[in-house]
């Protein structure tokens, strides 16, 4: 699971008011190189919840993203775009868990696939 996808997921357990962002417990992170596509990054940027991405990247052991949500002028900086690209598309949580911020319920991640299935009493 890439952080791009993490940024879209939330805990949807019944009764949970704020299930976003999910915390990340890391057992194994892998990196896979993908082609750099600045246009994609510029399109996706406004849809990304920045704090969630920064927090997620730190849990994954990468600390080079700025804490504050960057101005859109940063999108002209290749240096910034490369870091954004790396965090969003190249870091994969291969083994670990996503944790509901409100209840602490863990959603396991195996072979890179998060299991977001709910138990009967959570629906």
């Amino acid at each position, binding site marked *: *699971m*890439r952080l*791009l*996808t993490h*940024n*879209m*997921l*939330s805990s*949807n357990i019944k009764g949970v008011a704020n299930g*976003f962002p999910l915390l990340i417990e890391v057992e194994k992170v892998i990196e*896979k190189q*993908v082609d750099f*596509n600045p*246009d*994609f990054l510029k*399109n*996706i940027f406004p*849809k990304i*919840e920045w704090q969630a991405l920064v927090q997620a990247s730190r849990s994954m052991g990468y600390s080079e993203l700025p804490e504050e949500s960057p101005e859109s002028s940063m999108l002209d900086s290749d240096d910034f775009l490369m870091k954004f690209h790396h965090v969003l*598309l190249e870091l994969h949580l291969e083994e670990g868990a996503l944790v509901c911020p409100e209840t602490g319920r863990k959603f396991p991640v195996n*072979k*890179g*696939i*998060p*299991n*977001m*299935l*709910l138990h009967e009493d959570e*629906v």
Partner: protein
Amino acid sequence: MKLKQLESVLGDLEQFSNPKVELEQYPTGPHIASRMLYTAENSFGDVSNKVVADFGCGCGTLGAAATLLGADQVIAIDIDSDSLELASENAADLELDIDFVQCDIRNLEWRVCSVGHVDTVVMNPPFGTRKKGVDMDFLSMALKVASQAVYSLHKTSTREHVKKAALRDFNASSAEVLCELRYDVPQLYKFHKKKEVDIAVDLWRFVPKRNLGRGI
């Protein structure tokens, strides 16, 4: 990529070895899958440089097709871990970057619904023959998640019902049958008496209402 080429690549994907009847797991054949995504791309521009979600991805054929046609990001979702494992192996064989998530489509109330992150949803939902209404649950959720368009297959025999539900209940601004296809259902399950049957299915394109404001 040309249509023939796409069909041939999809034809090499590994299919279910033990399909689960309760989930109505029928593979989306390369013929149908290639035409579905090719039309979405070439007639409507709904695939390349878009974020595409594949609902009930099974062995991942539609998601793979979207990636091959240049989608920027593909998220494939299924309830079944065996399907996801197979789909992720298929993606790895073709060196495609697809993110897989295990989830029941009916419980998909994620952040994704509120931000319009996903442009296009493609799906071959269960037809609802084993579990009544599940096809409409998929459609309802797809129209909540997609900001541009939903492509889906439904039995031709349910055409009027699908149209009415989409427009009246699920907030679609348009619901159009693009073509009628023959869906070959091979003899996968014991209750299938004939070796292979063809059923008529419609390829639909739905446009969610919130899209109207964006001038499409």
